[in-house]
């Protein structure tokens, strides 16, 4: 057992004007020698809690003790890295470090030694004189961490350090934190990624300000042990089967994993496929549960498999043509090539994923295909309309949903719906039908006159999707559509998407969320402006296994890392 460096009891945080309390009686203890995870979707109250510990907020109720005193008493022993760390973009790496060393009163005699250690630790020594603004997302986070560590703290508060960081950097970051823990520092790591929770010794799971679970993650997963199974080898379309399984009463959650389906039951998982009316060739295998399974179980299970949205959607008759086509798409900004010679064809009724670290070029490619950027070379087409010559027609056949809530927050829900119906040029009657249907499908009836910006995240997401598909487009563009939302809302979203795809809709999705990648029929892995691998999720995993034979049942994340590292090695060899 380590020493307790922070504890809180019965914390309640009420913000003026907010309908709901941000924290509802939360208790937490952070000890040295271990990573304490603070896990939950966006808006769960993680940042509020961390800010209270860092003495940036005072709780409405409850008691807090940090480093043996009131919050704020032992400031030099506290390291805090906020979500958007205050790096100075116009200062170089070493200047940023110097600035923080001054601010935190590190004696000048220790500077050189500390900087050398931190630069070595974060592997940033090579970029010492690079400007903060020119660093990649992962490097920025590492520099932020280094700045928070200029005076070795006893308690380190990390607010979503892994957001927007690619899997490779994420692993490195995690390794660095583990090293710190071994040195006797207490670390509180907040994250919306549930897979990170499993690696923590102690986890506090927050949802809508409530503490849903605290303890070792295995305690939560134990609740669902034996209730998870993977179905493989079945005939027919995987999405249709998933829908059928989810509609069963005994299945409370299910996801796609390449060609297999992972199911969570409300009772011990059956071992015979026949119980589920599956065909004889399919196999069922019980698998160990994950943290997310436990979370979903606590939340009472995910939604059913049939999407009302998809049921009402028109059937897209794509014919033989392809829905999205990229021919040698290239984008240069000055002498920097952001996307180099992107080539792919997406048939109707498929989900296609663009996968890659931040800044690799997946957003650039995505934006060229939906007409937000003009390609320097090459051409793209959506539903047969060339983006250069038939931009408006191409735009009429696509729906677009961005990661960031991009509806009008000051407008009411109904005004947003009205605007998009009009913007897509729906006639008065069509618009009324589309809006009524959206209100029903997404359960927006009670909040029609609310400002869209004030709604909870899950509702915002529903509204975004409602607006994006108002005109029943044959093609959907999704830019990291579910990062940060809770797993149930995420299931609901993908249930709709899966249903739409069964109706013939084509989806192009960018993501660095590995779970979303599993839903894709085909994936392009984009790295350093180039398309380095293409294939189904299973194919990519298989290739990763060939590259590093040590991998057992590789996940999408393993595949991603293996392929990127292989690419790096190839580039190094060529140089």
């Amino acid at each position, binding site marked *: 057992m380590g020493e307790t460096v922070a504890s809180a009891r019965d914390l309640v945080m009420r913000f003026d004007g907010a309908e709901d309390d941000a924290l509802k009686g939360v208790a937490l203890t952070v000890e040295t020698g271990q990573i304490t995870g603070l896990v939950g979707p966006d808006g769960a109250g993680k940042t509020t809690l961390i800010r209270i510990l860092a003495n940036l907020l005072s709780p409405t109720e409850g008691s807090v003790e940090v480093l043996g005193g009131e919050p704020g008493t032992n400031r030099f022993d506290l390291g805090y890295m906020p979500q958007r760390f205050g790096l100075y973009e116009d200062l170089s790496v070493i200047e940023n470090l110097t600035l923080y060393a001054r601010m935190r009163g590190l004696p000048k005699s220790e500077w050189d030694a500390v900087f050398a250690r931190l630069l070595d630790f974060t592997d940033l020594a090579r970029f010492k004189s690079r400007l903060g603004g020119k660093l990649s997302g992962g490097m920025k986070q590492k520099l932020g961490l280094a700045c928070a560590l200029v005076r070795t703290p006893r308690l380190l508060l990390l607010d979503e350090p892994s957001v927007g960081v690619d899997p490779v950097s994420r692993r490195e970051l995690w390794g660095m934190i583990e090293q710190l823990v071994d040195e006797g520092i207490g670390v509180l790591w907040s994250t919306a990624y549930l897979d990170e929770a499993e690696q923590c010794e102690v986890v506090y799971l927050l949802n809508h300000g409530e503490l849903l679970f605290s303890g070792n993650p295995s305690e939560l997963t134990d609740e669902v042990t034996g209730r998870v199974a993977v179905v493989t080898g079945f005939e027919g379309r995987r999405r249709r089967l998933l829908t059928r399984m989810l509609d069963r009463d005994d299945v409370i959650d299910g996801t796609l994993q390449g060609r297999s389906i992972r199911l969570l039951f409300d009772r011990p998982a059956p071992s015979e496929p026949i119980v589920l009316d599956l065909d004889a060739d399919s196999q069922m295998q019980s698998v160990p549960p994950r943290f997310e399974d436990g979370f979903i179980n606590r939340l009472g299970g995910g939604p059913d498999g049939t999407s009302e949205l998809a049921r009402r959607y028109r059937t897209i008759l794509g014919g033989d043509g392809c829905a999205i086509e990229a021919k040698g798409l290239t984008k240069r900004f000055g002498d920097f090539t952001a996307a180099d010679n992107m080539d792919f064809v997406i048939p109707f009724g498929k989900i296609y994923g663009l996968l890659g670290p931040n800044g690799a070029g997946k957003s650039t490619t995505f934006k060229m295909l939906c007409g937000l950027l003009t390609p320097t070379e090459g051409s793209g087409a959506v539903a047969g309309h060339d983006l250069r010559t038939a931009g408006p027609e191409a735009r009429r056949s696509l729906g677009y949903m961005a990661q960031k809530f991009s509806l009008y927050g000051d407008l009411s829900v109904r005004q947003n719906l009205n605007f998009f119906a009009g*913007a897509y040029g729906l006639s008065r009657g069509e618009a009324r039908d589309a809006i009524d249907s959206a209100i029903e499908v997404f359960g927006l009836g009670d909040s029609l006159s609310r400002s869209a910006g004030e709604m909870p995240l899950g509702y915002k997401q529903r509204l975004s999707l409602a607006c994006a598909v108002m005109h029943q487009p044959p093609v959907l563009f999704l830019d990291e559509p579910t990062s940060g939302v809770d797993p149930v809302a995420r299931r609901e979203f993908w249930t709709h998407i899966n249903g739409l795809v069964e109706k013939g809709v084509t989806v192009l999705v960018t993501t660095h969320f590995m779970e979303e990648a599993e839903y894709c029929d085909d994936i392009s892995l984009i790295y350093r402006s180039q398309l380095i691998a293409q294939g189904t999720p299973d194919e990519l995993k298989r290739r990763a296994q060939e590259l590093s034979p040590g991998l057992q049942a590789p996940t999408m994340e393993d595949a991603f890392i293996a392929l990127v590292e292989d690419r790096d090695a190839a580039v190094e060899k060529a140089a």
Partner: protein
Amino acid sequence: MQRLKAIIVKEAWALLRDPRGRITLFVPPLIQLLLFSFAATLEVKNTDVGYLDLSSGVESVEILSRLEASGNFDEVRRLGSYDELQDAIDQQQIIAALVFDQQFDRSVLSSKPAAIGVVLDGRRINAAQIVSRYISEIASSVGMEAGPARTTGPPSITRSWFNPNLDFIWFNIPALACIIVSVSALSVTAQSVARERELGTFDQLMVSPLRVHEILIGKIIPPFLVAVLAGLVFVVAAPIYGVPFTGSILLFVLGLSFYALALGGFGMFVSSLSKTQQQAFLGSFVITVPIVLLSGFAAPIANMPDWLQPITYLIPARYFLEMSLGIFLKDMPLFDVLGLLWPLVLLSIATLGTSAWLFRARME
């Protein structure tokens, strides 16, 4: 049409539903109307003048009584000596003092040139100059009446056309219509694209089937209406201030509309250059100041240095200021209004065209 209607309605709601936006929409113009029309006056009121009368004749008394009757001064004080005069000026009790020498009365009666000494407080140069003008006007009128048989030259009689009493508010209200419309039109349009860029909704607009011209029209109409309404407030407010509106209201609205359009173009230009609302705010501030200064409101354009004068041709306020003053005070005819209108049309086309191009160019 459906699309155009949708975006106009949306822009109007966006303007009205944002609580901060509502305040910036209505409060500053009203405050400016009140502040400017009372504070930005070039008339001198509420000050005292003194006099030192060594002549003790009739003529000096006549001048002083007229001075008192003019209503420009609270008090016309009698001073006993030069020392007293100096003290009164030093302590800023009076802004100016008139000195009648011993020969004054005699000179006037014998039709010789008579002089009044005027001591002004140079520390308050603006007000002092105006006071000096009042004094010389009154003195000369007395002089003319007193000496009709004067031999030197024809008498000069000043009559101000269109503003007979040279009442400053007659200039101020029409000019403020121009200035305040520019401030509110620029600040509203400058935010519109920048705000959407910052909040990430602009991408959403650009991938919708809306065409660039539809977005532009949709974004310009609500602020356009705001600007026209703000301008009309001055027509309504004019009688309250006793300012006449002699011209055609239709011509005024016509001129105001194109003025608002040109301003909207400038605002949109700033907005499409900006990535954040903050940049847009600074941008609109940067162009509002020269628009006001170079419009002819603060200083006559003819008084500006030669190199600066051509630049004022790019300032929409220059044209509308002339129009507004003309229509308010001298019933400016259609032909003259048209002569001032076409530069506004050109400016609107240029700025709106550039903004439309920037919409796309700045996506990169």
